[in-house]
């Protein structure tokens, strides 16, 4: 019972905060509400007996991504009052989203339900083993990916000639 109520609370929190992200007028608000979604999701992970993932979620997302996002927002501030450049299509977007939701829910409802497994939850050790045996190749590839990402981000934002900044050209 408590589980149900907890799930309901967390789910409601996630959905509500997500809606606020999706409808956010202000990027900072959006980032903050995203933080709420991510945090609530971490709680959900715990309820789903995945505490390790919850930790990762908090570390990587709330700690890393959120910071990056805020940084990004700071770096890309612009005049809020400029006229809209493109049409928003809230109705179309809403209809499409609801349509997708409808299809997904139909699919979920018509697929066979899995009953909660009583097996012991996966431990960090299980995860670690899996990472270093079966998925070691992917793991290594991931490390390359992270390296490439790092290099990529740097090369994108590095200015080769500080004396000729874009800003100066304006």
């Amino acid at each position, binding site marked *: 019972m408590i589980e149900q109520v907890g799930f309901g609370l967390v789910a409601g929190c996630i959905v509500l905060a997500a809606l606020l992200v999706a409808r956010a007028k202000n990027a900072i608000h959006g980032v903050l509400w995203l933080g709420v979604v991510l945090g609530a999701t971490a709680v959900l992970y715990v309820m789903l007996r995945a505490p390790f993932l919850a930790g990762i979620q908090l570390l990587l997302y709330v700690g890393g991504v959120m910071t990056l996002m805020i940084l990004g927002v700071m770096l890309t501030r612009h005049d809020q009052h400029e006229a809209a*450049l*493109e049409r928003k*299509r809230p109705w*179309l977007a809403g209809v*499409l989203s609801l*349509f*997708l939701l409808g*299809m997904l829910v*139909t*699919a979920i409802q018509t697929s066979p339900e899995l009953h909660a497994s009583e097996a012991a939850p996966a431990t960090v050790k299980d995860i670690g083993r899996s990472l270093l045996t079966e998925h070691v190749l992917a793991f290594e590839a991931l490390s390359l990916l992270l390296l490439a990402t790092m290099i990529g981000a740097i090369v994108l934002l590095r200015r080769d000639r500080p004396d000729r900044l874009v800003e100066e050209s304006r």
Partner: protein
Amino acid sequence: MLASPVSLALTALLAPGAVALLLAVATPLRNRKSAIVLSVLAALSSLVAAILLVKGQLTPTPPQLLTVPWLLQGGVPFAEIGLRIDGISASMLLVVTFVASCVQIFSVGYMHDESPPAQGRYFTYHSLFLTAMNILVLAPNLLQLFLGWELVGVTSYLLIGYYYRKPSAAKAAVKAFWVTKFADMGLLIGLLVLRSKTGSFDWDATITPQAANLVTLLLFVAVMGKSAQFPLHIWLPDAMEGPTPVSALLHAATMVAAGVFLIVRGWPLFELAHSTRAFMLGLGSVTALLAATMALFQNDIKKVLAYSTCSQLGYMIAALGAGSLLGGFFHLTTHAFFKALLFLGAGSVIHAVHSNDLRDMGGLARKMPVTTLTFVIGALSLAGLPGLAGFFSKDLILEAVGEHGFSLWLVLLLVSAFLTAFYMGRLLLRVFFAPATEKSSHAHESGGFLLLPLGLLAVPALATGYFGGMFGQLYGTAYHFHLGNIGILAAGLGVLGLLLSYVLYRHRAEHPALLAPLGRLIEHGPMDRLYEGGFHRVALPFAALVGWIDRYLVDGVMNLTGLAFIVSGQKIRRIQTGIATDYVLATVGGVLALLLYGVMR
């Protein structure tokens, strides 16, 4: 015999052929006097060969055939070409080569003022013509006859258009070709029908009368074109735009007579085809009368003769229609001689006066005695004065037509006989005996090259009539002359016509008031206008319509198809708005569509 008939025939065929080829290819030869020498020599050697051939045919011999397969069909010959030597071909060959030789000799003098290359061209055409005519004459079957038939058509086109700088000559040449070519469609189809009915192109294959009627009718359409029968006669008067010797050779003596020759050759078919022959009889008579009427009102000396040719061809057709092979062919022969003579005489006159117009002539009898003499012989022969060649052949025809009793056609022909004498009388009077005009006063007798052929031709124009028996032998039909009522009537009408013309035109050039309206009508050229109207008002606009449809509708649809692709490309590219979120939308839309498909299945 020194030479076999086949080699003689080959000589007759190949001598002018080789010369034509040589002159066509070797420009240096063509551009000098050598062209004249070669061409005349070729014609003369053909003539010699023809004479020898005829001599050989005088004793009854079976036809000599030499054929080679020309087209194949499934390994067996589909069509053959070669030579057929019999009385008909030999005598026709003689006529053709004789007249051709005369005309070529005449041309040497007549064309003397032209530039050497132009003369070379002229004589090349002549050699070509002689070759083509010989191909036609010596044909062993209707296909080869058709080949020669078309080739003489072309040489006719070339020779009429010899003065190509003159627009009227160019027009006349084209017109002649179109009209005859139009008619030749009948011959071509007739050949196809003949081939499908009998399995060959021979004229003596077995055939049902019905089929024979169909085939001969188709063939006769071509004859109408080539032999200028009403209503396809319109090209012949215009063809007088060519040099006068050409008119003499092609458009009087030989080529136009090829139609008659076709019927003579195809006689086994025509003999069976009663309906066709009935038609021929009628059409020939009508043509004879109409053309004679028209001849009366011409002021161009050559046009008078041209219409006269039409009229005389009508006689021949009528004769054949009436079933008289000999009558038709004999008249062809005599007509060839006297009409060629007349034309050459006219040429001599024109050469002297530098005009074609009767109104410019007059009083030439004293200035050009030889010409006058020969011309008068020809004219009287044409008018059917008893004793001259024309009289005998015409009599034969009238007898044949009248054989089955008194008929409308006989009346028409008799009236034509009268008219013939009448207009020839007018011609003689105006040209030779009327008072001299400014132009004709400076005229003087032509030179030897012109007079020699006149003399040569005058002989047969006078005397051929007495060799009827020989011709009958050559054609394989008996000929006995006997003067019947009709013959006397015709002769009388001829004399009457001459006298009447003397009365009417002795002192004046104008036509009597009674005839004037008819003259105006004929000057108006109703048939020509009909054809030209048809071409310019119907055929050309129709072609223009087809052309328009092709360019703007059919091709338009093709362009439209291309355009449809381009425009749809233009339209579709609008979805690429340039705004990244729209791209995301498209991606999402695609995914949703995929999912929708998943739900649907």
